[in-house]
């Protein structure tokens, strides 16, 4: 049981706990915070895998930007503890069983077929950041450009949707 493995399990446990608490928390704010925990844990795992750039982005963009946005909205709408209704019949016991079945099946399949992915040989060898930047601006320049338009769309949407009706 190497140190790496210990760290991995620690972080994994953290992530899972965060996710579970996202589910269990009644107040959106707490959910948001537990989601942040998950993201931090994942960032740690990225580091563990030597993907430092991704880890950084994970912290900055996800943890920093997106989640802040969430929290901001929650505050804006001062959403309280969510009311517990169960109008939907489907989302009761049957839903539970179905979800468990689905998740279980996916996990099991992956566990079985994990062997098909050969274990990593040279970790951290590829100086990821430089390589990534090269790929982004060379191989994947087209989707990269497209994402810019995507963000424009997002901005546009946000303004259109959120702006008050001009009478």
């Amino acid at each position, binding site marked *: 049981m190497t140190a790496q493995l210990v760290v991995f399990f620690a972080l994994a446990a953290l992530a899972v706990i965060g996710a579970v608490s996202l589910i269990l928390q009644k107040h959106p704010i707490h959910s948001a915070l537990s989601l942040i925990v998950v993201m931090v844990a994942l960032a740690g795992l990225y580091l563990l895998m030597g993907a430092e750039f991704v880890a950084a982005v994970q912290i900055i963009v996800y943890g920093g930007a997106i989640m802040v946005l969430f929290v901001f909205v929650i505050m804006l709408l001062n959403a309280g503890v969510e009311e517990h209704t169960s109008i939907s019949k489907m989302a009761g016991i049957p839903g539970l069983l179905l979800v468990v079945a689905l998740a279980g099946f*996916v996990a099991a*399949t*992956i566990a*079985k*077929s*994990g062997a*098909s*992915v050969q274990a990593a040989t040279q970790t951290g060898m590829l100086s990821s950041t430089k390589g990534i930047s*090269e790929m982004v*601006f*060379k*191989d*994947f*320049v*087209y*989707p990269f450009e*497209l*994402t810019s*338009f*995507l963000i*424009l*769309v*997002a901005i*546009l*949407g946000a*303004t*259109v*949707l959120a702006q008050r*009706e001009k009478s």
Partner: protein
Amino acid sequence: MIDHLPRAIDIYRTLPELIWCCFGVLAMLLQPFVRSRQFFTALALIGSLAGTLASVFALVNSGPGFYGLIQSDSFSFFFRMLVGTVTFLVVLAAGPYLDRERLPIAEFYALLLFATAGMGVLASAQELLTAFIGLEMSSISSYILAGYRRDALKSSESAMKYFLLGSFATAFFLYGIALVYGATGTTLLDQMANADMTSTLLKLGLALILIGLGFKVAAAPFQVWTPDVYEGAPTPVTALFSAGPKAAAFALLLRIFATVPAATRFWFWAFWVLAALTMFAGNLGALVQTNVKRLLAYSSIAHAGYILVAFAAVTTMSSESNRGAGPAYAAVLFYLLSYALVKLGAFTIVSQLGGAGEKSLSLDDYAGLSQRQPFVAAMLSVYLLSLLGLPVTAGFFGKFYIFKAAVNSHLLWLAILMAINSVIGAYYYLRVIVVMYMREPSAEAAALSPVPFPVGVNLVLLITFAGTILFGVYPNPVINFILRPSLLGH
């Protein structure tokens, strides 16, 4: 470093999308300065038209672009033309609607154009992540457009449902991509050709991808969102939904299919089942609808089912002989074309008759329409008959080709199920015609003065009608084109 920059040829091969995006940006930028709707309408028209024409240019120098991320070939040409035309028509039809509902104009057109660009990307993407970006572009714009009537409860609700469920499904799609990437080490479709078929990881990934796309094309049991979203969205947007994104999603499915043998192999029975479920879900659901808009939504589900039948046919055929699938592709493409024309026409009429605030959408409002507005009634009947698949309409050939593909690949049972469904479908399409022609209008309905049809709308109707009849009598040009062996790049 020069070699890092994209070459001109890459630009040419993606020209339509770029043009659409640019015009979208242009609309955004000019929005603060120009007030007149006509201006933006003109801009959007020019933009959509320019992009559509640019696809010809893209076809002329066809081939892979951006290191094989996209593929500009006859196939993508067809879909770019299709979505471009759809956008063009939607722009035409939407003008009066926006005025009537007093909605911001520039943003609408900009979103429309971005959505179109996204669909174009989907149609030409040769790599899963690019496809994903395109998908998101069209989807996110669609979410916004669905909620475009901000103050209308239904509209915002449809936006919410579409958004939540859409992203939910997208997550599956994305996870599928991840697994496929893991299994094959690449996301380039043509490199997956020689992936080992035995890998369960690949199998799972493809399954998840199918789930994501199945949601987008509204295949049962993913169809649940469709009626709500279609009903809630502003009608011109509904017209777009039923014609554009669906076609683009089908395009991606078809391309994955054609290039990834594994997909061809794993997906057959899934398509068989989905097709059967979808046909029945759509038709049976439509039987009992009284809201025309919702009825058409259900019918579009049913039609997705018919197209899936053709997909099942593609599988077997392409497994039998490399070029054998030709007819089945033809079936899918022709069907999408005819279907897009018809649905656009129908929804345009519905949106026009809906009146301010989309009040009169129920069947009763259509009673006696044949006296009030004989030509509108006649056109709507033609569209419905085309959906029902009667001769001298494009819909008939569409259905015919699908039947042919199905029988070609011995999908006899599927063909019979489809036959049964077309009979069920006949019932509710006829119901609308019956109401328009054979039922006397209620007192207040009779009192209504004919709804005015502006020039733009009439133009849309004219084009769609002409197309419906033309392709119903003489489909040769289209057929010739989509049957060319070089349909998909290689």
